[in-house]
């Protein structure tokens, strides 16, 4: 049925060949006739509401990760001797002035720690004083991206010796909000870098297998099958355990990412191989060959652009897997380790009964993981639906 309908759309059922259709005129005046692949995808994608929401969240998340130093109120490693397990505080935006009027300035109630010497339970009671906050104030100094020194934060206490905890504090009185924000950087990066590795592996191997076929295909396909049949956790375990301890945190991070990317590449390789296989027999590719296009051009100008949208979709769906993989590795004690801050590390620290009972807010990174994974999945779903705007 659809094909009949579809034939209705691009004009001409007329036999009148001289008439040139302008593509279907769209309500908002867009002209599909001169719309490139990406425009068409975007138009199609935009209709997918969940995917749009996903995209928005993902963009926000990466912005947060990029500007973590600025957005976090405190240095994620700065601790507060009197702030262990401080519960989350609400920020009040409106304050009563001394004259009794109202002004707009953020503040939180100041609290005081009392610890039961026997049960060691910490309780925080409001002292009745207010800790005033200000926007873009000076606080802990940092180097944004290791380059730009600064000490401005989005929201800081006016008195630099005071603290406030929007998402509560961990056992060392470290601000969970700051830690979650900083954790985003490593966790989201691990997704990206991991995917980059998978992509290189997946596209190279999948592409070789699909394009060359023959024994190359056989070898690569069999290897992919082999890797697919291995349970991933043991592989991670063994590989992570094999990382020399002498490596710096950065090197470890890099290799953990590499290990994590082992999740994704096989799937990508399969996708790419399949697409290459079918594409290389597509008429327009054959036409390009007959146009005497060099092999490089056939692959990069004709075949790859048809793949990119699908690859992007697959990649988007692979990112959350990597983020989850990182948390799993951390849980097993084989991923990143403190003092590195990733969501996995933070969750590992919260993975005990004590945190559930005394500090449920320590699971904030878990919420962040859930949101991220959801957002990526919805985004990926939308991308996949929009990946082929010509069907």
């Amino acid at each position, binding site marked *: 049925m659809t094909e009949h309908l579809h034939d209705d759309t691009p004009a001409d059922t007329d036999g009148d060949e001289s008439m040139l259709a302008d593509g279907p005129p769209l309500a908002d005046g867009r002209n599909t006739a001169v719309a490139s692949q990406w425009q068409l995808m975007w138009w199609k994608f935009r209709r997918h509401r969940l995917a749009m929401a996903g995209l928005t969240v993902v963009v926000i998340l990466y912005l947060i990760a990029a500007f973590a130093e600025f957005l976090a109120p405190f240095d994620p490693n700065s601790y507060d001797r009197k702030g262990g397990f401080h519960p989350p505080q609400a920020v009040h935006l409106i304050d009563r002035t001394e004259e009794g009027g109202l002004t707009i300035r953020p503040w939180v109630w100041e609290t005081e720690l009392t610890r039961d010497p026997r049960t060691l339970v910490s309780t925080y009671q409001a002292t009745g004083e207010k800790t005033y906050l200000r926007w873009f104030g000076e606080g802990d100094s940092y180097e944004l991206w290791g380059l730009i020194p600064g000490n401005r934060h989005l929201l800081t206490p006016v008195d630099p010796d005071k603290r406030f905890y929007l998402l509560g504090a961990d056992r060392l009185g470290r601000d969970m909000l700051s830690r979650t924000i900083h954790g985003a950087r490593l966790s989201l990066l691990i997704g990206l870098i991991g995917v980059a590795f998978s992509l290189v592996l997946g596209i190279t191997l999948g592409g070789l297998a699909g394009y060359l076929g023959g024994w190359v295909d056989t070898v690569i396909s069999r290897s992919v099958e082999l890797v697919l049949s291995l349970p991933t956790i043991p592989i991670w375990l063994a590989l992570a355990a094999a990382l020399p301890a002498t490596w710096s945190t950065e090197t470890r991070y890099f290799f953990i990412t590499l290990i994590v990317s082992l999740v994704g590449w096989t799937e990508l390789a399969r996708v790419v191989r399949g697409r290459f296989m079918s594409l290389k027999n597509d008429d327009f590719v054959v036409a390009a060959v007959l146009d005497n296009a060099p092999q490089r051009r056939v692959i990069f100008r004709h075949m790859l652009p048809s793949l990119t949208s699908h690859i992007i979709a697959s990649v988007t769906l692979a990112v959350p897997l990597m983020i989850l993989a990182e948390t799993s590795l951390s849980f097993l004690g084989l991923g990143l380790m403190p*003092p590195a801050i990733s969501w996995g590390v933070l969750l590992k620290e919260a993975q*005990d009964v*004590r945190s559930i009972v005394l500090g449920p807010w320590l699971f904030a990174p878990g919420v962040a993981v859930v949101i991220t994974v959801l957002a990526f999945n919805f985004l990926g779903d939308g991308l996949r639906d929009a990946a082929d705007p010509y069907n």
Partner: protein
Amino acid sequence: MTLYWKMGALALSLGLVTTPTWAQDYNEAPALAEAVKAGKLPPVAERLPAKPEVITPVEQIGTYGGTIRRGLRGSSDHNNILRFLSPQGLTRWNPDFTEVVPNLAESWEVSDDASEYTFHLREGTKWSDGAPFTADDVLFFVNDLLTNADFYGSAPPARFVIEGQPMTAEKIDDYTVKLSFVAPYGQFLQELATPLAQEPVLWAKHYCSQFHPTYNSDVQSMVDAEGAADWADLFRRKCGDLEIPARWGNPDRPTLDPWVATDEAYTGDATRVVFERNPYFWQVDTEGNQLPYVDKVRWSVEQDAESLVLQVLAGEIDMQARHLDASKNIPVYYENQERGGYDILERLNSDANAMGFYLNLNEKDPELNKVFNSKDFRIALSLGINRDEIIDLVYLGQGEPFQIGARPGHALYNEQLGRQFTEYDPDRANELLDGLGLTERDAEGYRLLPDGKRLSFQVDVIPTLQVEWVDAMELVNEQWKALGIETTTNTVERTLYYERGDSNDFEMQVWNAPGGLDPTLSPRNVMAVHPQGSRFALQWAKWYLSGGKDGMEPSDSMKRRYDLFAEFKSEADLQKQLEIFEKIHQEAADAFEVFGVALPANKVGIKSRKLKNVPMSFPAAWMYPDPGPTLPQQYYFEK
């Protein structure tokens, strides 16, 4: 609660026996009484020794029945079982960890030079299968295993070797055996009370000899049938050894423990471990009731420690401290005490410190080596630690600043060793560092070594062992940064931690510091004598253990300590032993090789409110494998 540990008390403990006046009038568990009635078991009087050891219950006479529920963690948790079944050695610790009391040996005599020990076994003591326990069993260990190169290779257990010569045994009669050494061995009775010297009474000759080629010429066929590597492997599979899980894996192995393995023994495939009462157990209470009171001990097998915490909260653990004593859990326990229906026990920490810092004095890098070996540098590091802050945050306010040494109150407590340089004085620390010539600083404010490199080193921490260390290191890194010293935490898996030690490939490592209550048993922090434990100078320890062939030559001070230690070991007189050890401590205090954060707070344990006769406070140590020495066989469930 303060603990006084006095060496001299040992002498008083000799020959401590209480004989009940109504000796032949014994009671037994109902199930056993029925078995006796059914003719499956001999009467209780025949099962007990002629003079069973009489145990005075902690609170009151108990009643029979019930199962104590505990939890095991995955693999390598065999000591969980050992600690509860208690080390049934020739001697044992009294519940206060202050003296050695008779156990399987009801009395003993020590030769004047402390090289010969004559033990009198309890006559009529039976293995758990009913076979008599005699001097032959002790001889079986000494003659057939200790000196058997197939079994121990060239390295028999160090606790039975003096000056390279293993202990010898002589059977005086069935119930008397003399153990002799080539040189004085003043520590022997205490060693026997630890969990690491139970071999003399571990193996029932009548059972285990079938796996020994001396007694069974056809042992090879059994080796083959079992798939074992050799007879020693087979022997260990069937009869166990110290420190291996197989000790608790064979229900057929006769033991002298209060509970014995059932078909649900501790094997790799166990999903639960159940031990049931030993009908031949050789202790009774003051009313002549055969111990243990409790029918069974059951361990669930968990992988994750948090499962055990949850079981505590659900009231499904009756008595346990192992895996549960992280200080972070204390508030959780208190919050859920009513729900779980348990009491929280206090376990006196025997460690010298909650967190010991071990700078590698054998550092490979010559520049760092020079710095590390400077006492002022170590003093500066110690002064640069804000101990109060760490105690407050990481240890929830528990503990007091301390270095690594015998705990206050101990006979060997040395104020200087324990307290020097514990104050937070960054200014003085900086002065000291300046004094070392480390005055050049880089752009970030870190001091430079003479060769121009930043004064920076890694601190290895095993996060899985004590999470608190990682947290504390976070603070310490910041605090030392203020001294212009860059340290980074290197969280490593424990195997790697040891590998780095073995290859002398580390700068500083963190470990706990045993020996707070048992400094003579765990002298590794004051002397480089332990090849894995003396982490501040492993190469010295290697040198020491290899007689100077291996490792690195130690400092003069350390050599003096080695000499003193040799003196100590051969000294029979307890008071003199103590004096010698005080000298060792003083030498260590002056050298100031290791330092720590705080005297560790006491640990906690959990016991069901229904479980009685459990002391609410007892020491926690490996050498005193708690709660074993508090005698779980006299715990009972209130009806």
